[in-house]
């Protein structure tokens, strides 16, 4: 869908996902790294697959003049330069716009390119703190937590892709490029769902809930969300509502088939079950036999049975569980590409299926192109003078 477009990606970790998403949708994305910058970390490989790699020393005037020649032929530039850094001068939007008025310049930075804290340093930890996500994860009253795998960079990168393409629609209509200024802090707020509405509407400050669901019973009962099972945990909640009641009834039916002790569960009319009215004693009595039942189940058994019985609930997967999930295999989600040592690497494939086809990833991570070849692709003679012929967009995809 985006095969007509060339993207130059100068971003650091905070912006990598943006170019990956655009590449998955067909754009020709060129990841720029300085000479000698290591590219072997799993994150680099996973988020820069499907892009080509251009080694360019942007600290030299020669490298910068090559960048300038390239930028005339680029549709979207992604960068994550902080205000005040030396590169901010030659990436100045006014300067680039003068060279290429159609350019969409996407800046992906921790706090955005302007404002009282734009120059503050932040890694994933500080961004998850600044965006409010840590205040909502962890045990109540204990240390606020981040997800161990960085998330804020992905929130920022994904928003950068939305911003880039919003600007592209405008450019297709008018020919006008513009600046897209992404704040990772503001992007993290998307992860908070409707939590801000509680503060705004009633002045209550939502906080972290640990491993239990609370706020559903007028008697203050907490419902267990994570249950130990034979090989890890499953996520299951005694919900109300039509889907919850159906789930609970089917769980009891399943337990009955297995001949396990039902305790109080045998007496409950699930069509009348309302978690709003349950006391902690009621919940504990219901949860005891369920806990015993789950303890004997493997995660995969729970997944398959819950799916077959149309019950709500999922196992708590590790990356190993995900890697072997038949649903993903059936949808050809994974794609093998040669890794740096020639051995195959298994990547997450293109994120969407378009017209029933998952477009294959075209470039393994680190597929190098040199600047002369790239300029030639852009229709610029290797010596540097702008060729008279216009670039034929999209022919290299």
């Amino acid at each position, binding site marked *: *869908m985006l095969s007509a477009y060339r993207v130059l990606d100068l971003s650091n970790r905070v912006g990598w996902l943006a170019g990956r*998403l655009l590449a998955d949708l*067909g754009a020709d994305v060129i990841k720029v790294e300085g000479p000698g910058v290591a590219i072997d970390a*799993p994150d680099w490989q*996973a*988020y820069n697959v499907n892009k080509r790699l251009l080694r360019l020393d942007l600290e030299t005037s020669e490298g910068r003049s090559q960048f300038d020649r390239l930028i005339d032929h680029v549709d979207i530039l992604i960068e994550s330069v902080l205000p005040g850094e030396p590169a901010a001068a030659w990436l100045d939007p006014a300067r680039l716009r003068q060279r290429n008025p159609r350019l969409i310049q996407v800046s992906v930075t921790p706090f955005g390119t302007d*404002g*009282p804290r734009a120059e503050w*340093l*932040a*890694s994933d*930890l500080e961004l*998850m703190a600044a*965006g*409010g996500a840590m205040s909502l994860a*962890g045990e109540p009253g204990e*240390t*606020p*937590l*981040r997800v*161990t*795998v960085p998330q804020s960079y*992905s929130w920022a990168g*994904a*928003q950068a892709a*939305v911003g880039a393409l*919003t600007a592209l629609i*405008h450019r*297709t*209509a008018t020919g006008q490029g*513009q600046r*897209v200024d992404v704040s990772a*802090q503001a992007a993290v707020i998307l*992860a908070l*769902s409707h*939590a*801000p509405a509680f503060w705004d509407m009633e002045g*209550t*400050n939502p*906080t972290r*809930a*640990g491993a239990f669901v609370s706020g559903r019973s007028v008697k203050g009962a907490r419902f267990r969300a*994570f249950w130990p099972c034979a090989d890890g*945990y499953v*996520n299951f909640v005694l919900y109300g*509502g039509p889907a919850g009641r159906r789930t609970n009834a089917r769980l009891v039916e399943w337990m009955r088939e297995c001949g396990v002790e039902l305790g109080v569960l045998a007496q409950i009319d699930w069509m009348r079950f309302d978690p709003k009215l349950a006391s902690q004693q009621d919940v504990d009595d219901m949860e005891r036999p369920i806990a015993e039942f789950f303890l004997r189940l493997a995660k995969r058994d729970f997944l398959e049975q819950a799916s077959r019985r149309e019950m*709500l*609930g*999922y196992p*708590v*997967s590790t*990356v190993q569980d995900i*890697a072997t999930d038949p*649903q993903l295999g059936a949808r050809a989600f994974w794609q093998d590409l040669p*890794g740096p040592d020639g051995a195959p690497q298994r990547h*997450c494939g293109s994120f*969407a*299926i*378009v017209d*029933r086809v998952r477009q294959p990833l075209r470039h393994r991570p680190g597929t190098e192109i040199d600047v002369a070849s790239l300029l030639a692709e852009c229709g610029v003679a290797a010596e540097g003078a702008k060729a008279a012929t216009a670039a034929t967009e999209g022919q290299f995809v």
Partner: protein
Amino acid sequence: MSAISQALDGVKVAEFGAYAAGPHIGKMLATFGATVVHVESHQRPDGFRTEYPPFKDGKPGPDRSGCFAILNDSKHAVTLDLKTPAGIDLAKRLVGWADIVVENMRPEVMDRLGLGYETARRLNPGIVMISSCNMGQTGPRAHTPGFGSQLSALAGFCGLTGTPDGPPMLLYGPYIDFIASTLGATAVLAALDGQRRTGQGAWIDLAQYESGLMFVAGALLDYHVSGRVAERADNRDPRAAPHNAYRCRDGAWLALSCWSDDEFGRLVETLGFPELRADRRFATLDSRQANLRDLDELIAAGLRWRGAEETAGRLQSARVHAYPVNTIADLFRDPQLAYRRIWRRRRHDGIGDVACYFSAFDLSATPGEVTAAAPGIGQHNAYVFQELLGLSGEEYAAYQGKGAFQ
């Protein structure tokens, strides 16, 4: 509306969706100028209107929901009873009008309603449709129902949050739905650009599960290549020490991290215990990692009676990574978010004054705006079907008589 041009001016979106994963796509497009029509019915209002708090004054009601309000500002709301032929007829007219159809029902529901992609394409050859559901449109578990909050466990997020020897942790709300909506908006915009240039539409099958996996892609690749299984590790990071959140004065917390020995030196100088710089236990990243418990205790003791905001500012002046752990309330007074005007207050008919989230990105030439608070149920029936779709007053009344708007 103002004369300022917006990036998505003239883009028409019909949304057959509820809860988060569908409606949030429309919200992002509406913020930058798209005309978005949210379709529901009086029998089956969007579940975010009715099922979850907060409600105005704690009293449930479809036009009193903060949950719905935060994802549906700047849109038009219509009601169509898709169980009546008249309702289906108008739904088809909407599909004929739209550039983009967003739906997040279970697979095949749109087909059964006669609104699936093949039908839509006959009505409107250039249509872009996105179908977003838990597992995607195909595969052995395509029809599994699911909540985004639990799908976040299946996609690895809950298992990767918490203490190594403790249980997994919940993430707030349907975390993964917002990943899916953001990636969905990306795909929809790419398809729309293709449509604008070639006239060709597209059908996008987006699995919310697979979208989520893009946010743990590095850990998945690492497993596939090395067999290493990523595990929850509190706030630890192998490349930085310290790297944690610490309790400060007045119940506040401060997150901070040091990515080099020099940065660690600046941290301890700023906190006023320079002797730690010379302490052999903390001289290098490796030794700080090996003695992390001691280090965390010393930093925690040093921060316990300090203000998080003020300390973050001093640490940043010394070029140390630090930020207060913002609570939800803090997000409304954070100076950087205020500078970016992230919250825009608008008048909501059922709630009164509400804060609407603007956008994580600013566009320099086409700035975007929250044009109105979320609409009441069916609020724009007459406007959408008469002004936008061109029904006459008599036609509209006839459809009304047939129960189309129930």
